[in-house]
């Protein structure tokens, strides 16, 4: 590309692309064309609420996640049970987590921007979630109060995640449309614990992310 030696690489690439497909068109024209793209796939599901919730639970089980169906009043007690079952003494929590979810007798440590090494001290983390997708068994977490930084749900080995039934959607398109308003936030889609199939296609849980995922599905 000798003709562009005086040009920046940016200009060289863009002018080459413009030379082939034409000048960039105005936003309105491009927007109209985008809006007219075929979208004959299922954006929503016709299934009733119970079926959607059961599907989410089924998909989560498929990924080896544990699911607990609880009422709002039962959250703290269930957290206590899981924590005691796992023999944990302290649990990491993000800022803004509902105080009512935290049982007495367990040390909850608020994430104050711990370094990676400091995060590594924690065995478990408890967070809320933005929504969950039934079709794919996916939980979505964003940088919002109660959901915290991405690193906080990554380094500890156990993730306890609270999902409200009202935040469960059936399909991926429903989820993306709900997330549109906060699309710029750091967002993590979590489908089961960390897993790999790189060795002879055998699925193994927990390589680098949490090995255990406990989902509290709240009525």
């Amino acid at each position, binding site marked *: 590309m000798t003709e562009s030696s005086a040009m920046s690489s940016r200009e060289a690439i863009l002018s080459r692309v413009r030379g082939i497909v*034409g000048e960039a068109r105005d936003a309105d024209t491009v927007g109209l064309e985008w809006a007219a793209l075929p*979208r*004959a796939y299922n954006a929503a599901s016709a299934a009733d609420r119970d079926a959607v919730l059961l599907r989410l639970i089924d998909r989560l089980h498929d990924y080896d996640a544990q699911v607990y169906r609880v009422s709002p009043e039962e959250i703290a007690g269930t957290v206590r049970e899981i924590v005691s079952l796992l023999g944990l003494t302290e649990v990491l929590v993000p800022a803004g987590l509902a105080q009512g979810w935290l049982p007495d007798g367990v040390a909850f440590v608020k994430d104050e921007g711990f370094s990676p090494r400091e995060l590594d001290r924690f065995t478990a983390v408890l967070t809320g979630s933005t929504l969950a997708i039934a079709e794919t068994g996916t939980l979505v977490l964003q940088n919002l109060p109660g959901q915290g930084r991405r690193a906080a749900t990554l380094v500890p080995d156990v993730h306890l995640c609270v999902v409200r039934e009202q935040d469960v959607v059936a399909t991926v*398109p429903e989820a993306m449309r709900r997330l549109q308003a906060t699309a710029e*936030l750091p967002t993590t889609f979590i489908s089961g614990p960390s897993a790999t199939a*790189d060795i002879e*296609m055998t699925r193994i849980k927990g390589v680098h992310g949490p090995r255990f995922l406990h989902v509290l599905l709240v009525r």
Partner: protein
Amino acid sequence: MSGGTALNPKTAPPFPIAATAMVGNTQLRKNVRHATDVIQAKRARVVGEMPDWQALRDAGSAVREHTIRNLPFYLEQFERNCTAAGGHVHWARDAAEARAIVVRLAQEAIARGRTAPSIAGRPAGEPQGTHPGAGEAADGVALQGEVIKIKSMTTEEIQLNRALESVGIHPYETDLAELIIQLGQDQPSHIVVPALHKNRQQIREIFLREMKLEHLGESPQDLADAARRFLREKFLRVETAISGANFLIAETGGVCVVESEGNGRMCLTLPKTLITLAGIDKVVPRFQDLEVLLQTLPRSATGERMNPYNSVWTGVGKGYAAGDGPEHFHVVLIDNGRTEVLADAEARQTLHCIRCGACQNACPVYRETGGHAYGSVYAGPIGAILTPQLLGMHYAQSLPYASSLCGACYEVCPVKINIPEVLVHLRGRVVEENTGGLKTITNPEAMAMKAAGAIFRSEGRFRAAQRLGRMGETPLERRDGQGQKWVSWLPGMLGGWTNVRDLRAMPQQTFREWWEERERKGAPAGEAG
């Protein structure tokens, strides 16, 4: 930690020669066949769950086509929005320029880390050797850096690791398969599961040797645990990461990375600096377009409804709670031949690819030879069309022929790239380049096709050719254990066929002969000899 000889289409042997060596490696073929069988079965199951699968393919194809047609608009929009969110966007025309940018950014990041107090936490015993070109830190110790990497075929494409090593920076691959490849001084053989040609015993040997372990079990769980221990300390210590990107979102300036193990999330969120390398073809118009691509990509790639982790982030996150992810974020947009692909209207759909690897798993040629025979990080049907276009047709001329044109790749492609159509088009370009446009005069294949045409046009000539062929091959026949006759060597140009496969001997009686004999005898149908 030096890589082996990188896959380089400019120096790789032509496909038929490389493939001949590969089909002789029964262990590799067994491993590849097992892996592709498993993924294909899983893919078929989860695709079968989707009544709207064809509508999703149509939408994915339309989104990609629309993006490529409006590439100047979307690239500029992405750059504007990413920059507004605190990211830095760089442009690289070719591999050399991309390598130089990434190396410089990595060196700057490492130098920042050196002068920051947090470097005191560096454990003793790390290599402290000198190397040229990286300058000196304030304390007088020559810079010796490390970066952690997410699996990225684009960084393989530009052979980034060797460039980093040449200035004394150690790149640690953190994807399990890429770690196996790196420690084994091997090369990736698949876009999605680059180490599928290795079985657990081979992986165990590599880990024992390279991680200096005394004991190691051989179950996949043992091997994954070893990788976790090996990499954990690096995730917590290394402050610079390099990633690829699955999608760049023009509307928000966001980046999406799709992965399974969490190594991606480690690299994207723990280090202070993140450098993301992406082809200019990776851009998608809007956040909402992920509703199509996040449905088709995981099901096509690994046969899962959704992969364990997708990360979407925008710049360094101005406007939301600080301390989530890196303080410094760079995106390097690379052309490296992509505008060449764009310039060929008939082959342009190659740029629609979202790198799911489904075409590789479905391809009978790939399944027999594995990925290395393609001499490129992009193997299988997509490699057969992408590599020669990225590199220029005079390299990798044999790749458009590395296909039986059976159409299985088109059928599974989640964005409906008509790979057979592009293969045929590229074969035409190869012929044209080799003959300067004088296709029928000097090109042996064109001459052979002309001769074949003459034979097929006349019944008498066709019968004569069959008789001649049967007579001609008789001395070359050998019998296998079941008494079936095979021909494993043919002379001259015909050897192009038998170089990479055996040919079943021609039957002693042709269908026409059998039919005529049957007519004579008046025998009932269905008693073929």
